[in-house]
């Protein structure tokens, strides 16, 4: 790609519209285009205009902070009126114009009393481009022009294509490592690899996030399923056994039922129950009889005692009665009074009594307080108690009769029951009652066993159902976890691939970087020798692993920071041309003041060798009259395709292109 035309409207010193510079790009052998101008005539402005057109900013001037609009144009523009700055560059391929890139910026004139002429930008730049269509029948707009420019000449390495020779050393003065690395990476097109690595890292991170958490109990699920299976088998076996047992029991029950029917079990049962009932009744009656007999014994003994002593009791009672009713029965007189009366020889009835008479003796006894009182009380008590004792005999005899009757009744009942039992025994005679009883008991036991077996079957079925349910749950969980694990496995594999690719990409990147770096290093060293007259003094030019540039003298001393302006320019050009040759970018190289700081001897070397080092590329050199010496001219003459002179017209106050 070659720069064939620049059109500048009102850009700083280029006043007016249609200031056009055209380069001869048709001669394939002559690829150097010279712009010759005196100092301060517009070389750097021209360089800036190209840079501004491409990137929207200036790179090579202290005037960058000021307006890019032509002061003359501003001054000629009415207050508040608008003026336009515009730069168009045309790039040709072998078929002719290929791309046209234009940037326009609009300004508004201020009424600024202090500065006199000033204008401020209004609105964003109008930035557009045209590309020749495939059939070469016309031009189509370039979409995403920023991206297009970035792919054609990345801004990061633009300083190796559009450069100011006098400021070349500054490239190495700061952030050199980063810039060189960045430059080499760009030259080596490592960006895409970096992007790929970054994307792969993002992808890997995404995979990590996609990895599903696996249940920590996952490994135990299978053992749980196995356990369920084992228990289900166990329960199934038990169920089969229980079913078989129930079947056997049912058969047994049928056999027993048949036996019992055949042996009139119902009748036997009824009779046996009846027999049992009667026996129980007899037991009760017998007990009742015994109780009555005991009672009868008691009653009989006590009655017999009374019966035998009845006469004695009756006689005593009779006597007591007589005593209590007799007028002789002593009244209730206090024994002390009786004693007083005895002393006087009087009875309690008032009659006189003789000494030693029976009356006196009786009264003496009565005067004995204790005996007297007891005697009275005993008689009184006897009168009350004795009739009771005697009379109760009669009622006791009645009771005895009643109890005796009860005993007789009991005996009668017992006899009747005995007869009934005998009758039953007669009825049961011939039937194998014991065998039937045993069978009946067996049947009852079998019934109970069937019931228990049935409960066991229900329980086992429920257990099996529960276990199958649990197993299903485990299997479902296992399937889910398995799917998760498989997905994770795939993701892990992808992630591993990512990491592998990242490693490959890094390896490739490192290899490419090293290869390019080594080539650039070699070429820079070779170029430097070709460009600088005293190059043999420098033992080695190298780019270290951390991308720092190094120039060592014959004594192995580092002198990169001690290079003279000229040597630094030669080194910069050498590095730039080496870098340029490996870049693969098909764009012209524009150098302002390539030999400004170079003496005559070196200038010849540069003039001879620089075009060779940049072979195949269009080179636009901005030189002053002082740089463009006869020697320089003589060496370059055969390689120059076109020369443009920039002249400053003092009268008009504008740059004129010739």
């Amino acid at each position: 790609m070659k720069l064939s035309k620049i059109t500048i409207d009102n850009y700083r010193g280029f006043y007016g519209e249609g200031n056009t510079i055209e380069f001869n790009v048709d001669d394939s052998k002559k690829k150097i285009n010279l712009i010759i101008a005196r100092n301060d005539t517009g070389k750097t402005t021209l360089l800036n205009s190209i840079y501004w057109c491409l990137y929207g900013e200036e790179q090579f001037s202290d005037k960058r902070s000021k307006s890019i609009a032509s002061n003359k144009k501003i001054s000629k523009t009415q207050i508040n009126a608008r003026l336009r700055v515009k730069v168009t560059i045309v790039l040709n391929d072998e078929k002719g114009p290929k791309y046209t890139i234009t940037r326009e910026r609009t300004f508004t004139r201020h009424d600024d009393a202090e500065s006199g002429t000033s204008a401020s930008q209004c609105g964003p730049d109008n930035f557009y481009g045209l590309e020749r269509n495939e059939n070469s029948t016309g031009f189509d707009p370039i979409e995403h022009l920023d991206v297009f420019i970035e792919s054609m000449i990345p801004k990061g390495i633009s300083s190796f294509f559009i450069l100011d020779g006098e400021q070349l050393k500054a490239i190495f003065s700061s952030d050199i490592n980063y810039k060189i690395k960045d430059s080499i990476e760009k030259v080596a097109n490592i960006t895409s690899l970096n992007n790929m690595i970054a994307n792969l890292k993002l992808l890997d991170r995404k995979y990590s996030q996609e990895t599903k958490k696996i249940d920590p109990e996952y490994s135990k699920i299978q053992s749980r399923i196995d356990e369920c299976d084992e228990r289900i088998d166990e329960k199934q076996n038990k169920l089969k056994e229980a079913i078989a047992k129930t079947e056997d029991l049912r058969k047994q029950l049928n056999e027993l039922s048949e036996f019992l029917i055949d042996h009139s079990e119902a009748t036997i049962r009824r009779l046996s129950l009846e027999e049992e009932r009667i026996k129980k009744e007899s037991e009760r009656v017998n007990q009742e009889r015994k109780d009555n007999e005991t009672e009868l014994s008691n009653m009989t003994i006590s009655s017999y005692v009374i019966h035998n002593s009845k006469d004695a009791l009756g006689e005593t009672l009779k006597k007591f009665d007589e005593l209590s009713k007799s007028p002789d029965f002593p009244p209730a007189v206090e024994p002390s009074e009786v004693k007083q009366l005895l002393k006087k020889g009087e009875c309690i009835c008032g009659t006189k009594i003789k000494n030693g008479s029976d009356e006196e003796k009786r009264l003496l006894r009565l005067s004995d307080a204790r005996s007297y009182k007891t005697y009275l009380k005993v008689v009184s008590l006897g009168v009350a108690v004795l009739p009771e004792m005697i009379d109760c005999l009669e009622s006791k005899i009645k009771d005895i009769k009643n109890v005796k009757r009860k005993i007789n009744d009991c005996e009668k009942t017992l006899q009747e029951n005995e007869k009934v039992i005998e009758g039953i025994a007669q009825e049961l005679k011939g039937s194998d009652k014991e065998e039937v009883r045993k069978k009946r008991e067996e049947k009852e036991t079998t019934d109970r066993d069937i019931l228990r077996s049935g409960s066991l079957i229900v329980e086992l079925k429920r257990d099996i159902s529960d276990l199958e349910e649990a197993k299903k749950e485990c299997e479902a969980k296992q399937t889910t976890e398995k799917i998760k694990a498989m997905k994770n496995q795939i993701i892990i594999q992808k992630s591993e691939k990512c990491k592998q690719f990242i490693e490959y990409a890094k390896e490739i990147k490192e290899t490419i970087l090293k290869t390019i770096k080594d080539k650039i290093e070699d070429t820079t060293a070779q170029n430097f020798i070709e460009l600088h007259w005293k190059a043999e003094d420098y033992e080695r030019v190298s780019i270290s692993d951390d991308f720092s540039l190094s120039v060592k003298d014959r004594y192995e001393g580092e002198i990169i920071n001690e290079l003279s302006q000229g040597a630094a320019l030669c080194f910069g050009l050498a590095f730039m041309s080496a870098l340029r040759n490996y870049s693969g970018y098909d764009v012209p190289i524009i150098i302002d003041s390539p030999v400004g700081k170079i003496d005559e001897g070196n200038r010849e070397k540069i003039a001879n060798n620089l075009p060779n080092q940049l072979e195949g590329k269009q080179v636009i050199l901005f030189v002053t009259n002082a740089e463009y010496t006869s020697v320089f001219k003589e060496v370059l003459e055969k390689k120059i395709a076109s020369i443009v002179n920039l002249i400053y017209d003092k009268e008009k106050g504008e740059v004129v292109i010739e």
Partner: protein
Amino acid sequence: MSAVDELIARINYLNIESDKRKIYNKLKTSIIFANTRGNPDIFLLSLTLGFKYNKRKKLKKSSNLFRVNELGKDIWIPLSIGYKVLGDLSIFETKEGVVMALKICEEYANCGIDILNGMMKKPKEFTDDIIREIIKEDVL
């Protein structure tokens, strides 16, 4: 405390012939006396039998059988028999009188126990015979 209780308060035991204790012990185990007071009832029965058949014998070697107060209201039976035999009301007046009456009773019982023992050789008939006797004499 009743008047009789006061009277017998200082009299401790009723006595039997020492040799006859074994009869008392044997009879106590009989079903007939199973639910009675035991010794007091056997003594009373022996006493009344001895009295009925008018057989009495002095005790050669006396032995305590039971406390007098265990007889309760039935004390009237020995006292009445004592009065019947002695015909003296003094037995109801003093301790000495009571003791005298009881002594007579002990003598009756001393013979009566042998009669009872003889009757008890046929225990099944014992009760029936007695009942028959009571009912025949008292009711019929």
